[in-house]
Each structure stands twice: as structure tokens, then as C-alpha cells.
């Protein structure tokens, strides 16, 4: 290949054009203002101007992988029926917590996830996501996002204007029925869901036998890898070690999505998930604590070269998912939406 500078610009232009043209047109997803009722139902509690919520969740690489996977519209997973909004759904009972969090009439299931991440310029922050879920999960959910400086404990902006990059100060609060907030990754609680966005309905259709659940996680991981790598996979798809990484990482990604989605849900499923994860290939269990220092057992996939290829998930002694070494999950019963239970 020549490096004659005189033809560099036309070569660059041609390459960019060919590469862009190779991105074929395909239907775009429905956006929030196009979903029935979505725009009208997402409001600010304090009447402030709606603000951007960035896609930052626990274990950012995993969340990003999930977002990437979500756009592929994977087939498969357990058979689920189309959502039927008008029919009371037994699946939403999953949102009622297990025996560890008894709710009285009118109370909300409160979940709080605290995690370390970075903001603009890779500045470390501690982000906090709180949800208040009504016992009838099709009712109105409340979401509050805040952040603070991990060194000083002082509040810091959580979000920034997407164009001006100006910080948006103060807590960010939204409400939406059925948890259907106007974020690309959020779906209605009665949606069928998928491995990437596990809804209560999706989880309700999963087996609670650890071996069967583990087999589904492995199957999903393999299917996703083939979709991501192309039809010829594994031919020409990197070294054997690369393939091993994929084999170990993808099931753990699915498991992580499930773990995050089952926060505050039925304890039996969470325990089954822990057992399934423990048996996934390459998974190593060891004592660990979450970000809050709560002790438990962490599970992470480690490749044959000793390289950790997944985030560690921590479960407490009762089989409840409590976060990761850099995140913490707590659940409780709240009397009022938008107000954390005492001590939480």
C-alpha cells in the first residue's frame, strides 16, 4: 500500500464512504415519545425540567455488553407469551419481595444500588440508583438518581446536558407506571423481556432448577457469541484463548443481568441463580464483601491463563444478590415513594 500523502484524502473519503454504505438500513426502535402514554407519564416530582439520564449501571462493561446485545434482538430464551396488559399478571408477584422484606399494605418495595463509576474526564464518583416499586407493579414506580464524591461524600452532578455538557445539579427523579421509564434500556414490567432486559415476566418463565438455569445461561452465551462473531464462528475468530474468554464471559453477563434484575424479588430465584452461577464454567467462588462491606461469597469467571473475564457477583449467606466488590444493593420497605426507609 502506498503512503503517498497526495492520495490520502481521496483514499480516506472512499474508505469512509464504503464503510458507511456497508451499514445497511434497518428499522429503528420506537423511541420514548412514540410509545403510548410514555411521554405523558414520565414526570419530574419537583416540576423540574426533564433531564438526561445516562446509561450507567452496575459494572459498566457488563451493562454496555448488554446494551450491545440488546440491539441484536436475540431469539430464544424461555418461551414467553406476548404481554397482556389488561390481565393481572402473576409474574408481577415476583416483584413482591421474599420473606426477608415483608411489606405492609400501601408500602413500596425499596431498592437502592450504590456503585462506583466515573464521570466526565474519568472523575470517580459514587452513583446511587433508588427505586420505589408499588406492590401492584403495574402502578407507578419512582426512580431517583444521585451521586457523590467518594472522597468527600459531597453531592456531585450525576448527569450532563448531552450537547452543552453543562452539569445538571440536584437529584434526578422520575416516575412511570410499570417501571417503564423513558430510557432506551428500560422496558415495561409486563413486557416479555429477554436475557438482556430480564423483566419479571421473563424471569417467571425461567427454571428455578440451578442445573437447568445454568444450561440456559451457557446456551444464551454461545448464541450471543455466534451472533456477535458471525456465522463462521469460531473459524477465524481469534485464538483459542479468545474463544475461551467468550465462553466464560457471556453466560456471566447474562447471569449478571438476571442478578441485577432480581434485586428485591423472590429469594428462591435469587438462590437458584447463585447455585447456577457457581456451576458455570470457569467460575471461582471466594469470600468477599460488597461495597458496603457486607460479607458474602463472590463468583467470577477466570480463564485458564488466570485472567478474570467477568465481574464478581456477591451473594449473602441467604442467597440474596448484594452487589459486587464495587457496588452494593439493599432492599427495604418504604412507606412513601421518593422517601427512603429509615436507616437505608
Amino acid at each position, binding site marked *: 500500500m502506498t503512503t503517498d500523502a497526495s492520495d*490520502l484524502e481521496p483514499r480516506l473519503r472512499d474508505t469512509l464512504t464504503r*464503510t458507511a454504505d456497508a451499514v445497511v438500513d434497518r428499522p429503528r426502535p420506537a423511541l420514548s415519545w412514540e410509545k403510548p402514554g410514555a411521554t405523558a407519564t414520565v414526570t419530574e416530582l419537583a416540576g423540574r425540567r426533564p433531564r438526561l439520564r445516562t446509561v450507567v449501571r452496575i459494572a459498566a462493561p457488563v451493562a454496555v455488553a448488554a446494551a450491545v446485545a440488546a440491539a441484536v434482538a436475540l431469539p430464544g430464551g424461555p418461551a414467553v407469551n406476548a404481554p397482556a396488559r389488561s390481565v393481572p399478571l402473576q409474574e408481577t408477584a415476583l416483584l413482591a419481595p421474599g420473606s426477608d422484606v415483608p411489606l405492609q399494605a400501601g408500602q413500596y418495595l425499596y431498592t437502592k444500588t450504590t456503585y462506583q463509576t466515573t464521570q466526565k474526564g474519568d472523575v470517580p464518583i459514587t452513583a446511587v440508583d433508588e427505586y420505589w416499586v408499588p406492590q401492584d407493579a403495574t402502578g407507578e414506580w419512582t426512580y431517583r438518581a444521585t451521586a457523590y464524591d467518594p472522597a468527600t461524600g459531597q453531592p456531585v452532578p450525576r448527569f450532563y446536558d448531552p450537547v452543552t455538557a453543562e452539569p445538571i445539579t440536584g437529584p434526578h427523579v422520575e416516575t412511570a407506571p410499570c417501571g417503564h421509564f423513558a430510557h432506551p434500556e428500560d422496558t415495561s414490567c409486563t413486557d416479555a423481556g429477554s436475557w438482556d432486559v430480564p423483566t419479571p415476566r421473563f424471569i417467571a418463565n425461567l427454571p428455578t432448577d440451578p442445573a437447568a438455569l445454568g444450561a440456559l445461561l451457557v446456551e444464551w452465551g454461545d448464541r450471543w457469541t455466534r451472533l456477535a462473531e458471525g456465522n463462521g464462528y469460531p473459524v477465524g475468530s481469534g485464538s483459542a484463548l479468545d474463544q475461551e474468554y467468550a465462553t466464560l464471559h457471556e453466560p456471566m453477563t447474562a447471569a449478571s443481568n438476571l442478578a441485577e434484575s432480581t434485586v428485591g424479588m423472590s429469594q428462591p430465584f435469587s438462590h437458584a441463580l447463585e447455585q447456577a452461577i457457581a456451576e458455570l464454567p470457569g467460575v471461582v467462588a471466594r469470600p468477599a464483601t460488597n461495597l458496603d462491606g457486607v460479607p458474602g461469597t463472590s463468583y467470577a469467571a477466570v480463564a485458564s491463563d488466570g485472567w478474570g473475564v467477568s465481574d464478581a457477583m456477591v451473594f449473602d449467606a441467604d442467597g440474596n444478590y448484594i452487589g459486587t466488590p464495587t457496588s452494593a444493593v439493599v432492599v427495604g420497605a418504604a412507606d412513601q415513594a421518593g422517601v427512603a426507609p429509615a436507616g437505608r
Partner: protein
Amino acid sequence: MALTSTPPRVGHPDFVLDTGVMTAVVDEQWTSLVRLAVLLIGDRTAAEDAVQDACEATWRVRPQVHDREHLIGYLRRAVVNRCHSTGRRTGTVRRFLASVRVDDALTAPAADVPVLAAETDAAVLGALARLSPRQREVLVLRYWSELSEREIAETLGIAPGTVKRTASDALARLNTLLGELR
């Protein structure tokens, strides 16, 4: 601040950013924005995610846009910003570099693309991935989006002089990298 030299926009006095306008503009621009994002971060699905995020964010902020073209420019800027932070946050660009293989879906040549062109594309994309995000943005906006220096400056929020300098540096670096890849 260089943007002060930008002439004030004269928009249509009746222009209202409502759901109909957003849907129409997003429908029309979706593929173009996804292609832009693919060129910046290299991954189709991550690019679609970035465009979706940018559209949602734009709708929720409801910027004071003056007309349709202004809205398109705003969306483009939001997409570039989103790609910029996505690349930094996730190392997407590093994966972009790793993905530049002739058997990859992104770079696999179409049947009517000559072999030499396919080899050129792989090399140029590989070199692009090794530029800084800002250099890559300037080159993509200049040579694919075909924006003027002023428009690139507006999109990236930098001075037109910086655009010129960045483009020059980026081309020189690109040329060096292509030489190394021979």
C-alpha cells in the same frame, strides 16, 4: 471563543419541536446518524445504542432549535458527544481496532468492492482507530459528513482554527500509521 463568530441563526418563526417533527427528523436521519456513529466507534450495535440515547436525550432536553436543519445539527452533535464518551468509557475504540479484520462484518467487502479497495479499507480503518477520538471525529465529519470547518467546530464545540489544526495533524498521523502498517 470561536463560536461567537458564527452568524446568528434565522429560523422559521413557526418552528415547534413536537413529537411529529422529532419522529420525522429521526426517521429521515436515523441511518445517517448510525453510520456516523459506526465510523466513530466501529460497532454497529453500540452505534445504534448511542444514536438512540442521543435522540432520547435531545427529546428530553427539548433544545431551543430554530428550524429543522438546526435540529439535525443538534442531533449530530449529541451523537458525536455520546460516541466520544462511549469510546472513552468502554474501550470501544480499542475493540474497533481489534475488529478491523477482512472477515469482520463491518469491514467485509461487498461483492462489488475490488480486493485492493478492501485491503485499503482495512488498513485505513485500522489507522483511524489509532488516532485520538477528537482527530477521528474531525476526519469523519470532514471526509464523510462533508461538513465545513465552521460546521465541524459547531458540532464539536471547538474553534474553527482548532479544527484546521486537528485535521492537519490527524492526516499526518494517519499517513505515518499507514506507512507503519505496510
